[in-house]
């Protein structure tokens, strides 16, 4: 490093030391502490308000989402037949299915043929 640079370095050091002395910190005002606590409380309130709004928003969004889901589900699934038929029709359909004749191999039908039916 050249001598000129060293001189500049030293001058800068002196200047920065003078700067340190020149930068006197202002005295804290008398209401420093009350204002500080007021700001802390205001920040706390702000946060709880934000949290409350956020929770409200979340609840509203959840409600809207559930209504939409229910609507979507209802639209996607076709209505079963028993919603459009009467009780008797539904009952008949079910009974027919349950009472269908059972075909057993090797067992003759119990139902007599038309020739064997007694005439009235």
């Amino acid at each position, binding site marked *: 490093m050249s001598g000129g640079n060293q001189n500049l*370095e030293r001058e800068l050091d002196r200047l920065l030391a*003078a700067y340190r002395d*020149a*930068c006197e*910190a202002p005295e804290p005002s008398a209401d420093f*502490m009350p204002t*500080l606590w007021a700001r*802390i409380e205001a920040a706390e309130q702000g946060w709880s308000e934000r949290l409350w709004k956020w929770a409200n928003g979340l609840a509203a969004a959840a409600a809207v989402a559930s209504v939409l889901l229910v609507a979507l589900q209802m639209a996607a699934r076709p209505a079963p037949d028993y919603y459009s038929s009467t009780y008797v029709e539904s009952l008949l359909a079910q009974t027919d299915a349950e009472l269908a004749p059972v075909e057993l191999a090797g067992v003759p039908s119990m139902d007599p043929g038309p020739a064997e039916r007694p005439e009235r």
Partner: protein
Amino acid sequence: MLVENDIVERARAGDAQAFNEIVQAYRRRIFGTVSRLIGRPEDVEDVAQEVFIRLYYSLDQLRSPEVFEPWLYRLTVNAALDYLRKRRKRKQEARVADLSEQQVMMADAAAGSKLEVERREKARVREFVDTLLAGVSEEDRILLTLKEVEGLSLKELEKIYRVNENALKVRLFRARQRVLRAYAARREEEARKGTSDERRESESGA
């Protein structure tokens, strides 16, 4: 440390009285640091309060009371940087140098007592150094101020910035070189101005 470890512990546990004690103990130091970092005396109190608000809300994240001071310095640096960034955004704000000039003019208008002369000289130094420091980024200006003006050691800066000493040294060296170049340029400019003033005076005398 300006406060005992148990006060920090109590404040961490939510004791408002202990927090008050911390504020009372560090208030002046934080005022001084903030004043040197932001360069605007009228905003020092506001930024210092911001530092303590951040401290209040982050005390529970403090690992141990031993690292309290670097932690507080870190909060101070961050609050000062945020303030400087906000100020940069506000175009209508007066430049630091302009404000200092206003202060010098106000001081000029005041009585020329010895105290006033001293005050004027201090204002001149502040303005001059602020102009030199304006040549580096805000981050580097803060780092340089903490090291060269606040007198913090590299070890302390390492704890505040959480980077290794070598990285800090490189950053500091570069920032200082930039300030040094700005200083050399200013001196050259002043010397040139002085020569031309002398020539003008001699010409008018002849």
